[in-house]
C-alpha cells in the first residue's frame, strides 16, 4: 500500500529550546487512513504536524535531523507552495491562519488557486462548506471580527472544501460546540472515505475512537504506543494521564472487572449496548 506519510528517525529542537522536542520519531501512515494522534501537552504533537506541510524546517528554524516524506516527497527539499496543494494543516490558533478581508474570500482564493476551480464554482463550494459548519451567515464579515469558535469553523470549512490529499487537524475542534464538533468528525470521515488521508490531534477521545482506523500515542517527543483503537484503548488504562480514556471504554473495562464477558472491547455506545444485551455473566448457566 502506498504511503501518505513516512517519518524516519526524526529529531527536532527549536532554536529556543534546550531539549529535543522530537526524539527519534518513526511513523508510517498509509494513503486513505484516518489516524488519531494523542498525547499530553508538550509531547511534540504540534511540532510533528508542522513537519507534514514543511513549516518545519522551511519556516520554523531549529535543528532538524531525519526524513519526512509526504506522498513520497521529501518535505525538506520541496517548495512549501507545491506541498500546500496536497497537504493542509489546521492549528489550534485559528486566528493567525485567517488573513483575507472577508470570510468568503478566505475560502474562494485557495479554492481557485489550489483546487483550480473557477471563481463561480469556488463561490458555490465555499458557501456550501460554510453552511455545513453553520457559518454561512458570516460570509461577508471580516474574519478578524468573528469569535474564536467561529474562526475555527471557517478554517475547518476551508479545509473540507479544499479536499486535500492529506488533511491534518491539530486540536482545531477544542473551542467548538459539541454539536459542531460532531459535524466535523462526520464530514472529515466522509472526506476520508473519498480518499483523503486524515490525521487528527485531539483530547476528545470519546469521538475520535469512533472514526479512527488507528491511534498513535506520543509522549516526550516519542511515539510510545500505536495500533487499532481497541488495542490502544485497552492499554491506555495502563498509560493513565496520557489520554482521557473514552467513557464507553471505561465502562466496558469496569464491566469486565465485575466478571461480565464482552466478546470485544466496544468503542461506541451502540456497540456496548449491543454487547451488554448479549452478555451473560461469567460462571452462571443460562436459565433454560
Amino acid at each position, binding site marked *: 500500500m502506498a504511503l501518505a506519510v513516512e517519518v524516519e528517525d526524526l529529531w527536532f529542537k527549536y532554536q529556543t529550546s534546550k531539549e529535543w522536542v522530537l526524539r527519534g520519531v518513526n511513523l508510517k501512515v498509509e494513503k486513505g487512513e484516518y489516524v488519531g494522534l494523542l498525547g499530553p501537552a508538550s509531547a511534540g504533537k504540534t511540532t510533528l504536524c508542522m513537519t507534514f506541510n514543511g513549516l518545519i524546517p522551511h519556516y520554523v528554524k531549529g535543528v532538524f535531523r531525519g526524513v519526512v516524506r509526504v506522498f513520497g516527497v521529501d518535505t525538506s527539499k520541496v517548495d512549501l507552495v507545491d506541498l500546500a496543494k496536497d497537504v493542509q494543516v489546521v492549528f489550534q490558533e485559528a486566528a493567525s491562519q485567517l488573513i483575507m478581508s472577508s470570510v468568503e474570500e478566505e475560502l474562494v482564493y485557495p479554492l481557485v488557486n489550489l483546487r483550480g476551480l473557477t471563481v463561480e464554482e469556488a463561490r458555490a463550494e465555499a458557501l456550501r462548506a460554510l453552511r455545513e459548519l453553520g457559518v454561512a451567515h458570516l460570509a461577508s464579515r471580516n474574519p478578524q471580527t468573528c469569535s474564536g469558535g467561529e474562526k475555527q469553523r471557517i478554517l475547518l470549512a476551508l479545509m473540507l472544501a479544499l479536499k486535500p490529499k492529506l488533511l491534518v487537524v491539530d486540536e482545531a475542534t477544542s473551542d467548538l*460546540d459539541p454539536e459542531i464538533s*460532531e459535524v466535523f468528525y462526520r464530514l472529515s470521515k466522509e472526506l476520508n472515505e473519498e480518499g483523503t488521508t486524515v490525521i487528527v490531534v485531539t483530547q476528545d477521545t470519546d469521538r475520535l475512537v469512533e472514526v479512527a482506523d488507528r491511534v498513535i500515542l506520543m509522549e516526550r517527543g516519542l511515539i510510545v504506543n500505536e495500533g487499532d483503537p481497541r488495542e490502544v484503548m485497552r492499554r491506555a488504562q495502563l498509560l493513565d494521564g496520557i489520554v482521557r480514556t473514552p*467513557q464507553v471504554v471505561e465502562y466496558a473495562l469496569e464491566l469486565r472487572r465485575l466478571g461480565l464477558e464482552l466478546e470485544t472491547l466496544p468503542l461506541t*455506545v451502540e456497540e456496548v449496548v449491543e454487547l451488554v444485551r448479549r452478555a451473560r*455473566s461469567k460462571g452462571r448457566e443460562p436459565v433454560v
Partner: protein
Amino acid sequence: MLEEPVVRVENLWFRYEREWVLRRVNLEVYSGEMLALIGRNGSGKSTLLKLIAGLLKPVKGRVTVAGVDTKRFKASKLASLASYMHQEPTQQLFALSVREEIRLGLKFMGLSEGEIETRLSRIVRELALEEVLDLNPRFLSRGDKQKVVLASLLVREPKVLLLDEPTTGLDSKTCDEVMRVVKSRVRRGCAAVIATHDLRNVAKYSDRVAVLHKGSVIATGSTTEILGNVDLMRSVGLSPLPLALVACKLDLRPVLDAASLAEATFKKVNCREF
C-alpha cells in the same frame, strides 16, 4: 439549603446592542458549591459570568455578590469578592514574570509584604508553579498560562470564582490538576461558577448544573439530573455524554461514573432483565 446564597441573580436582562443576550435570568449560587453553566456557543454563558463579576452591569434586574449590588461598585472593587477568569488566558497576563503577575493583585489589596510572600509561596506550591516563577507568563504553554491566571485569582481568596472555559485546550492531566485545586477551594467554602462545554469535567466535579439556552436559564438541578437527561440535553443542542446514552438505552437510572453504571448494569444482567 437554608443559608443565604452568595450570588443572587434576579430577573436579569442584558443586551450589548439591540438584541437581548440574557432574558429574565434567575439564579442562586451557594458557598461551598460548584455550579456549571452549560449551553451552546452564544447561549449567554460568558456574558452571565461577566455580569456576576461586575464587568458588565444589568440593563434590567439585579445581581448581588455577598449582598453587594454589582451596580454600586466598580469591577475592580468587586474583584476580591468575585474573581473572574477570561476564556483566553493571555487577556489576563500583564506582568513580566509569573511571580510579579501573582503579586500584582495582592499589592492592589494593600496587604503587607509578609502576607504577600506567604500567600505567594502557598499558591505556587499548590499549583506546582515553582519552575516557571521567573519566566514571562505570556510565553508559557497554554496549560501553564491557565494555572498562572488561576493562581493570581486564588491568592486573593475570593468568595466566588467565575471561570470561563478554564480547561479548554488542556490535556487530561493538566485539566484534572486545575479542577482539583478549584474543587479544594470549593470544599473550603468558596463558590465556583464555571462556564464550560466539557461535560465530562462537569460530570466529574460539579455539584449542580444550570442550562442556558438562547439567553435564558431553562433548567437547573443536580449534575446527574441534568446531564443524565438525554432529551433535555438534545433539546438545547448539546450532545449527551456516552454514559448517559448507555444508561438511557439500557433503561438504567442515569449514573455518570463508569464504575457505578457498570455495577448497576451487572446487577441487571444477573437478574436476566435484558
